[in-house]
């Protein structure tokens, strides 16, 4: 079972990333055509680049931002999960499970309810919330070391508390008719895209510089220290980037379960555990998965929409069990 895993040459990693990117582009094209407004390719191109067409304008204002937000958030959330799994050396370290997303969502909800004027700072404040949640959970789980089971247990308890508080705020804020804890990609605007793109760049650029650190974290803390590197410093740096990524995504699209857990595991199966390949691949795969989930959600029960997070949970749960049943030792 382990002997089959040959070290992967870099060329294979690049090929895998290109293939995933091509799939991503194809999915985006399909998503553009999916929906209640039907427009032929020719009309679409003409409407975009040549002359005004109200149907195309609606697509440009509604579907394009939605697709871009899905791609950005999917990449952010997946890479965040990958980084947390590496930093905590824990295959279950999903920011949703361990409560980071919950903390970020709580702060985002509170800000949106009580200080709506701070709209553009919401991701930053959500980052503060996510970071606080992370430190809290980290501190509560620390007992001479970081037990993987303990951090998951503490995280589950903390995220339940955060989710409860978020609902309470949503109730108290009331009257707006928009649920603040909504997790979904509907009604996204170009403003959301610009906002998310800025934060995604701030998070993904450092994330793409972290692979050597993530690779090193696969050794034991003692071994890392023996090489003259502080494992705790690495862990702090990697975690901070992970929390920034997931917090900004959560601030815009809400909590999306499973994505951060499944995509890194699936990516690891496909391209191996070298983060130099794994990080970009997980980003592209995450973007693809969230976009597909959202597009399926728009399509499957049209004209009603099934939120992407629901599609993720429904399809992701069984897929994750399938991964576990394959009996591999991913993340170990």
């Amino acid at each position, binding site marked *: 079972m*382990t*002997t089959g*895993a*040959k*070290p*992967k040459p870099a060329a294979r990693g690049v090929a895998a990333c290109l293939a995933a990117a091509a799939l991503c582009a194809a999915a985006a094209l399909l998503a553009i055509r999916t929906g209640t407004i039907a427009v032929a390719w020719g009309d679409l191109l003409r409407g975009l680049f040549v002359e005004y067409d109200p149907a195309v304008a609606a697509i440009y204002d509604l579907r394009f931002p939605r697709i871009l937000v899905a791609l950005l958030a999917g990449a952010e959330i997946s890479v965040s999960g990958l980084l947390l799994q590496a930093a905590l050396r824990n295959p279950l370290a999903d920011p949703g499970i361990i409560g980071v997303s919950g903390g970020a969502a709580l702060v985002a909800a509170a800000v949106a309810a009580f200080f709506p004027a701070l709209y553009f700072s919401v991701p930053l404040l959500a980052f503060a919330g996510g970071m606080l949640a992370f430190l809290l959970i980290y501190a509560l789980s620390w007992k*001479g070391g970081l037990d993987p089971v303990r951090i998951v247990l503490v995280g589950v308890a903390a995220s339940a508390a955060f989710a409860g508080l978020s609902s309470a705020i949503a109730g108290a804020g009331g009257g707006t008719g928009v649920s603040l804890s909504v997790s979904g990609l509907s009604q996204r605007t170009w403003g959301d895209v610009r906002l998310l793109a800025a934060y995604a760049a701030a998070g993904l650029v450092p994330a793409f510089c972290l692979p*050597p650190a993530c690779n*090193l974290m*696969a*050794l*034991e803390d*003692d*071994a890392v*220290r*023996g*090489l*003259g*590197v*502080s494992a705790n410093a690495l862990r702090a740096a990697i975690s901070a980037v992970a929390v920034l990524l997931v917090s900004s995504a959560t601030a815009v699209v809400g909590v999306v379960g499973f994505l951060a857990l499944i995509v890194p595991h699936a990516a690891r199966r496909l391209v*191996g*555990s*070298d983060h130099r390949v794994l990080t970009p691949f997980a980003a592209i795969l995450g973007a693809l998965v969230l976009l597909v989930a959202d597009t399926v959600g728009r399509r499957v029960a049209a004209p009603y929409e099934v939120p992407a997070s629901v599609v993720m949970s429904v399809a992701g749960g069984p897929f994750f069990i399938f991964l576990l049943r394959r009996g591999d*030792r991913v993340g*170990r």
Partner: protein
Amino acid sequence: MAAEGIMDGAITSPRVAPAVAPAIALAIAPAVAPAVAPRVAPAESQAGCAAGASGAAGGAAAEHGGAADGAIAAENLCFAYGGGAPVLSGVSCRIAPGAVTALMGANACGKTTLMRLMTKGLRPDSGRVLLGGRDIAGIGLRDFARRAAIVHQKNTAPDDLSVKRLVGYGRIPHAPPFSPPSKRDGERVAWAMSATGVSDIADRPMGALSGGQRQRAFIAMALAQETKLLFLDEPTAYLDVRYQVEILRLIRELNRSHGITIVKVLHDINQALAYSDEVIGLRGGRVLVQGPPRGVIDSRAIQELFRIRLEVKTDGRHMWVLPV
């Protein structure tokens, strides 16, 4: 070997020629052993261990001068985990440069703790560890990693990581962060792999190795750090007997051929006796005996160290304990 004389003066001259050291030990043993009591009363051991025992440590240590750069010594170390009962209460000892030293003792006697204190893995409550005359508390982690390498008991690596890349991690203390490997890095990695006999499996993934091969790969990573001092915590744990002996022979070979000073924690009394120039026996957080095995180990010493009466046999060349 080219391995010598590389580092910034952190080098003692190479150890005494292989054949000589055991001879010294043999020569001293009959004369000294009965005279120098192996058992030192705890109170005396604090002061006595550094001075008294290094006398017995034989010519090798004395020749190189006590404060030789690269020599490591503990001074009156005290340590307790998180305010619990003390694990070490006043441990002083000096590691003979150029020798193979085994830390031995019963479970929970503090041998692994002592090793962790000597390698910056833990901070002592009081006392200090001197490396080349400098307190290691004042030596940065990275700097320390260029002077001493450690192979821990528990090691993990991704299954699909190649042996060569794992060994390459050993160059991290020498390289500017995240820079591509230099020519020298490549040479040292190749040397470390050949010294540990893993060159042939350089491209194999770690997940495909046997227990013995894995352990040798981790030792190679430590060797790539290019240090004169190598610590090993239970290097034979989890291995079956063939690999145990293989690893112990490898460790001795690294010492003999490349002049690397070795400190290892060993559980097995006989392995400690057979593959070490020096033993340091701990009990209850104190140094009970220190010196060449033949000088300090007899059945009374074993009884005091392990609290069990066992026969100690010896013939012309070997010494062993019957653990039954």
